């Protein structure tokens, strides 16, 4: 590929937010026909750099050259017009519009003045097809789909136009293996068509699989630009975290956790054929104290919905649920929380963050809620808790008073996790808890989960990363087509085993 003139060249970019210097003299070059990975820890400045490029944020310093000419976008609209197509980190679509409307929003095909809805449908189908999403109905309302699917729709929207630059900010954070492969297929075709692609992900293997070149950021500063093939993983990791650290080794000893079997003592929670009309069916699981139950399944298999049922976020209308031996119907999350159940949602933006409140308020919210409004947690205690968890999960910026919406995606996720850890529940349901979290923090959190379990907390663990599930769980429940199809003890279960179960049952 020719490297003469970069399609996009950003030089010495600086952006300062009150309190934080998000970017400090960062350079980035995108060449056509190349996949460029933007690497860095949570809060390193990846998303900010992207927003600086697409004109969401004005830059305080530096220059942006697009197609050779000095150029600065003042609005996302301009960037789009200039052929820069972006998928931002937080799914930013209109939940009440249909899938097709979302995909073609603002560029509806026109015929004779009016727009032709036939054409809209056709184009939507076409691009969904490319992403192997032919099965979803373009006319269906977006909000009826899981966050993962919504993310795919956002991607579809981005690849639908023939752009010269395609920017993907953590597109794979909640996709599982197959979707990732489909996405990569699309990325490759685009790359071969000469599109310049900027790709952000915390999954090293994905980065190494797809990218040709990478730029590494640390604390808003540029570490360097490298050819992927010249930069071994360990080197990359140490460049990102800035110190020699054997992350993989850490992963190893996270894996080395004892296979405890607690099935003899009475289960904390027991679901019998639990289900809900139009949603999941026949969920039958028992969770014992100190046990980690992993939910495995493909995208849209009903893991989230199962979790919501067990938490009372949706009401079950089939089967029964026993908590501590007695039959209970969970009508509201509140009633679940009162029984020591906690649920951290996969949809952090809509179901997690209280954007305009501080990190502190967000941290203590759940605890405060269960205490009731009268018994306010003393400020001192709040601060202690906040500081404790900011340190424990290494949340950046390390300020209790920062508005949570100003935190980076990964750091927001950490805060929400902490919100539930504080309440120290008996059963902790984690739906994609490590979504968008960098490797360093991820290993921390995985360790944390194991320790919590060994201290007797029950945990239901959902992750799009099957390895992660297999590595952590004592037992694994497999879902398929929103129905539970298997529940196996994790004595060396492999990905293949799970896949065969999923494949097998439709025979």
């Amino acid at each position, binding site marked *: 590929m020719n490297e003469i003139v970069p399609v996009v060249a950003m030089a010495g970019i600086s952006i300062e937010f009150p309190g934080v210097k998000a970017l400090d003299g960062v350079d980035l070059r995108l060449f056509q026909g190349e996949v460029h990975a933007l690497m860095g820890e949570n809060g390193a400045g990846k998303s900010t750099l992207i927003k600086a490029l697409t004109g969401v944020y004005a830059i305080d310093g530096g220059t942006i050259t697009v197609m050779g000419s000095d150029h600065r976008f003042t609005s996302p609209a301009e960037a789009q017009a200039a052929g820069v197509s972006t998928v931002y980190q937080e799914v930013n*679509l209109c939940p009440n519009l249909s899938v097709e409307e979302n995909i073609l929003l603002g560029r509806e095909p026109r015929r004779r003045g009016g727009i032709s809805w036939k054409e809209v449908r056709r184009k939507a189908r076409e691009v969904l097809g490319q992403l192997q999403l032919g099965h979803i109905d373009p006319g269906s309302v977006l909000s009826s789909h899981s966050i993962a699917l919504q993310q795919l729709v956002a991607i579809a929207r981005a690849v639908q136009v023939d752009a010269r630059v395609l920017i993907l900010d953590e597109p794979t954070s909640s996709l599982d293996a197959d979707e990732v492969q489909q996405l990569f297929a699309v990325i490759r075709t685009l790359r071969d068509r000469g599109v310049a692609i900027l790709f952000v992900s915390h999954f090293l293997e994905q980065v190494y699989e797809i990218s040709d070149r990478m730029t590494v950021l640390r604390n808003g500063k540029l570490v360097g630009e490298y050819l992927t093939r010249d930069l071994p993983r360990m080197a990359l990791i140490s460049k990102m975290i800035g110190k020699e650290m054997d992350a993989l080794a850490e992963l190893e000893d996270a894996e080395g956790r004892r296979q405890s079997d607690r099935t003899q003592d009475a289960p904390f929670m027991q679901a019998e054929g639990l289900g809900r009309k139009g949603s999941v069916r026949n969920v039958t699981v028992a969770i014992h104290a100190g046990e980690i139950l992993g939910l495995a399944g493909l995208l849209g298999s009903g893991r989230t919905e199962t979790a919501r049922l067990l938490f009372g976020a949706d009401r079950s209308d089939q089967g029964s649920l026993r908590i501590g031996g007695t039959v209970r119907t969970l009508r509201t999350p509140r009633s679940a929380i009162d029984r020591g159940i906690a649920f951290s949602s996969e949809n952090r933006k809509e179901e997690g963050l209280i954007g305009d409140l501080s990190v502190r308020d967000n941290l203590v919210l759940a605890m405060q809620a269960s205490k009731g409004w009268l018994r306010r947690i003393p400020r001192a205690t709040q601060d202690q808790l906040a500081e404790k968890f900011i340190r424990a999960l290494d949340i950046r910026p390390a300020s209790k008073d920062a508005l949570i919406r100003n935190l980076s995606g990964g750091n927001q996720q950490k805060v929400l996790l902490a919100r539930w850890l504080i309440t120290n529940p008996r059963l902790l349901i984690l739906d994609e808890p490590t979504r968008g979290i960098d490797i360093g923090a991820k290993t921390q959190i995985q360790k944390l989960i194991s320790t919590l379990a060994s201290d007797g907390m029950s945990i239901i663990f959902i992750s799009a990363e099957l390895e992660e599930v297999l590595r952590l769980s004592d037992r694994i429940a497999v879902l398929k087509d929103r129905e539970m199809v298997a529940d196996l003890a994790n004595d060396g279960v492999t990905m293949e085993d799970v896949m065969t179960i999923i494949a097998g049952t439709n025979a």
Partner: protein
Amino acid sequence: MNALLKHRLTWPVLALVLLLLLNQLFRADFLAVRVQDGHLFGSLIDILRNGAPTILIALGMTLVIASRGIDLSVGAVAAISGAVSCTYIYNSPDPSSFRTAAVAVVIAVAVGLALGLWNGFLVSVVGIQPIIATLVLMTAGRGLAQLVTDGQIISVSNDSYQAIGAGFFLGLPISILIAAVAFGVAGLLTRRTALGTLIEAVGINPVASRLAGLNARNITWTVYVFSGLCAAVAGLMISSNVTAADANNAGLYIEMDAILAVVIGGTSLAGGRYSLVGTLVGALIIQTLTTTVYTLGIPPEVTLVFKALVVIIVCLLQSSKARALLGRRRRPVTEQSEVKVSI
């Protein structure tokens, strides 16, 4: 059947039908429509004719609300439009000619557009919250109208002008024809072009729309201008119907009626999905309600209470429907919030 129950329009339509039947019960010839000196005549026609201004204003209001805004100034704009046109006719050399009427109409419409621009400016450019931005014009507007008419009630006698609100064409009230046309145009504009979707997008998620490269500002601006236009025409109807401009009382509380119509029609004040037909039905319900009060001879003391009751029943029907639906859809929490989240 189930599908029918689910349909957002079922309940409003049902309510409307019931109201009409109720009237029919009390006055056997209520639904009767006879021809009298060349045009249709009867309660139904009255409902349509008197309802026309509300329908028109509710139409504009629907788009404003779909974009997550609200326009409290419509009543005042209507008053101003009436005041301007009547004052013009009143002071013009030949106050009874068609030309005068035409010019008056043009002026009034222009004024309406200007006021709409002003509202849109405050909301989309300056970024004042819609309810406040339009509240300003709502209060100031009456004052302006008074200045125009200087506190007097300006009555005019100009047949062409009077036709707008009280005239008939092909046996049908001209006012309702105007409203119908407006509806048609709006329907086409929003559905045949992308405008409708864009408005909804802006209403549902302004941030997302901006990231998607939409020009939220212009879209917002447009809806307020359109609302101003509708209000102006409605103002013409009102004043022409009584051949006089009353700065104080013309279109008083009509904004509330319009908002009610929109909501009864099943559009959420949280913005997003809207239904023009729903609004139409809603407006008719409200108009019929007023008529009902007189047919049933409801004692004045309890009129307000009666009206409120009917409104609340319709809302209850709808929301209980909403709750029933919760059972079927996927993310109940969101659903629920949708009902709650919204002023």
